[in-house]
């Protein structure tokens, strides 16, 4: 057993209101500069929708992630040697047009225009070339456009649905959508790491954060193709790739990452998970439908004394172990089993989990009037959002997996409704708990964690122990007036 710690996250989609505060917080902190305008390390998509970059989930086109080739796991974009052969022109690299060309407006024209009969206008200009351009895409261009026949209709998940199911999605007055915030998943079997020819991308051993060593990156751009979530971005001015760093400098100072801290809906949870790194490959080789469950299986119980002993032996600090025990992510994913990874079938073992949205699933049938728990659950079959669509997103097509989560979420609703509104029989509540296989205490805990917790319980940043880092053994006097500010150069092209 090779126990490692991973800073993992849960996004509770029922609580996401699609306000993009997370995206803006991230942009202001990390990507507010020339060449990074188009990058959204954190973005919020509308589902059904094509997302950012357009149709990123369609790996038949983008070739991201892994696939099984015999008994081996191989990048979908090809083996290592063929990857090197493609180094002069990456066949699977999306261009800026598949994201969007950043633009601004010539505001100065508004004030500088000579007097005339017409109102002066501010023409849009490209932030790449500075030339006038036609704006045909932008950040969150398809925001809330569910039902649109360009964006929602081309969602790779929707395309797979039957005609009937599609009609169910797009019928007037039944239109439905939810928001999907996305950051880097800091995968255990990361496609970007696996595809980087320079070996510049790595997973930090202590916390599992996936980073790109900017000094080692040579701009071969394979990571952009290798990541099925399209969460590494090529910096077209610097010739280096960049990605979400899970705000590790903030975490090292004990702060929550910016997108977590700023989240208005408080949908974001962060905590440490312990897992067995020796199992990564075996889990990634499972059948599509088993992947979500297998990934849950490999997460270890931090309360188990034997695991604790093994973790300490593997060099995981006691403070980190304590953080793992307090981890809300462990509860969501493992204890309660109500959070699922996004697209596990990409086989990267993403460590960002989603609590699937309940409201758009149920709100059609129940106008708050259904009595029988049985009725509640049967609505799953003809829910506004087809289970098949959700299973395609969160469980590699395994509908049972998604339904199990929904049953628990519904049971929470029923028990809380019985407690607060009081129009539910106790028998119904008990029946609901039985169907969902969840205890009354668990329901209360889920309810509290979902609705009532303090930021320190939602976001349990483990101590990063930088004081024990390798470089901390060097006398600071050695680098006096060399390190810190001025040592790092500005991220722009100089040669």
């Amino acid at each position, binding site marked *: 057993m*090779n126990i490692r710690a991973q800073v993992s996250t849960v996004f509770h989609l029922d609580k996401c209101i699609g306000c993009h505060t997370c995206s803006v917080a991230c942009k202001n902190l990390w990507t507010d500069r020339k060449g990074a305008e188009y990058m959204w390390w954190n973005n919020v998509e509308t589902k059904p929708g094509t997302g950012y970059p357009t149709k990123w989930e369609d790996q038949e086109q983008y070739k991201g992630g892994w696939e099984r080739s015999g008994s081996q*796991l191989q*990048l979908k974009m090809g083996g*290592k*040697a063929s990857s*090197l052969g493609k*180094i*002069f*022109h990456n066949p699977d*690299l999306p*261009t*800026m047009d598949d994201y969007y*060309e950043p633009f601004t407006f010539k505001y100065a024209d508004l004030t500088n225009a000579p007097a005339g009969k017409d109102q002066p206008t501010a023409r849009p200009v*490209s932030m*790449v*070339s*500075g*030339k006038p351009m036609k704006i045909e895409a932008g950040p969150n261009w398809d925001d809330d456009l569910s039902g649109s026949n360009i964006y929602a209709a081309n969602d790779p998940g929707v395309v797979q649905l039957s005609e009937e199911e599609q009609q169910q999605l797009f019928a007037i007055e039944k239109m439905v959508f939810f928001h999907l915030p996305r950051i880097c998943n800091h995968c255990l*079997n990361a496609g970007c*790491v*696996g595809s*980087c*020819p*320079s*070996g510049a991308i*790595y*997973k*930090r*051993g*202590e916390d599992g954060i996936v980073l790109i060593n*900017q*000094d*080692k*990156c*040579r*701009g*071969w*751009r394979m990571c*952009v193709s290798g990541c099925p979530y399209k969460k590494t971005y*090529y910096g*077209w*001015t*610097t*010739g*280096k790739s960049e990605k979400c760093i899970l705000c590790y400098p903030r975490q090292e100072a004990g702060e929550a990452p910016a997108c977590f801290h700023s989240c208005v809906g408080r949908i974001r949870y962060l905590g440490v998970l312990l897992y067995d790194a020796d199992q*990564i490959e075996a889990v990634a080789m499972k059948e599509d439908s088993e992947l979500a469950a297998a990934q849950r299986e490999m997460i270890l119980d931090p309360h188990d004394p034997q695991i604790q002993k093994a973790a300490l*032996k*593997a*060099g995981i600090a006691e403070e980190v172990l304590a953080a793992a025990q307090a981890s809300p992510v462990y509860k969501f994913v493992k204890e309660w089993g109500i959070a699922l990874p996004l697209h596990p079938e990409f086989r990267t073992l993403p460590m960002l989990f989603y609590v699937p949205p309940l409201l758009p699933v149920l709100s059609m049938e129940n106008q708050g009037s259904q009595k029988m728990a049985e009725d509640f659950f049967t609505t799953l079959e003809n829910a506004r959002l087809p289970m098949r669509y959700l299973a395609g997103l969160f469980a590699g097509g395994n509908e049972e997996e998604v339904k199990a989560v929904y049953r628990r979420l519904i049971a929470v609703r029923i028990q809380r409704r019985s407690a607060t509104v009081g129009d539910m029989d106790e028998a119904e509540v008990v029946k609901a708990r039985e169907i969902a296989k969840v205890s009354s205490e668990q329901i209360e805990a889920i309810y509290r964690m979902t609705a009532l917790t303090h930021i320190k319980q939602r976001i349990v940043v483990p101590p990063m*122990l930088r004081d*024990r*880092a*390798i*470089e901390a*053994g060097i006398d600071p006097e050695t680098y006096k007036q060399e390190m810190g500010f001025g040592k790092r*150069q500005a*991220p722009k*092209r*100089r*040669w």
Partner: protein
Amino acid sequence: MIDMILFGVFPYVAVALAVAVGIYRYCFDRYSWSSQSSQFLESKALFWGSVPWHYAILLILLAHLLAFLFPSAWGALLGEPGRLYFLEVTGIALGVTTILAMLVLIFRRAANDRVCAVTSKVDWALLIALLIQVTSGVYIAVTLRWGGFWYVHTVSPWLWSLVGFSPKIQYLAEMPFIVKLHAFNAFFLLALFPFSRLVHVVSVPLSYISRPYQVVVWYRQRSGN
């Protein structure tokens, strides 16, 4: 005198610049070490430029290198008119391909607004120097046949004399202008190497083949493993 400067002194200057500035840049500004790919901004034309360019120029450079390093073996290889003819035809075809590819690349840089925006003066200098290099090379191969053969007995000894720090410029002094241009421009490109995006040629990531897919880096010393 001018020949001495161009072919007896400048090569040393070029190599010194390439090594010294290259090492300086690697040590103090490694962040700048990149191919500066513009595929993200324009992909289609780049394919028709970059792919034929790189593969053809690599093969041509390999031939130059082999003929320099192993002149007698190269001479023996070409010592059969059939083989000589085949290799020359192949070489000229590859050379013509590099010219076509370079024209595509130059046109793309000039015509595409986005790509033009990320092109520096050094990039233009580099592109033009490369175009001069491949054009003069093909011109030599076509008009001064068989370049692949006489290279062994003129250029190779000149290069080896440079290696031995006793430059024998007489090998080049009597050569036609176009050959001199090709030889000088080669060292000019070498001198340009550390100042341009050309640095990417020395970061071929061959170690990728042998390393495991996943890379884990620890920031703490671990006693366990």
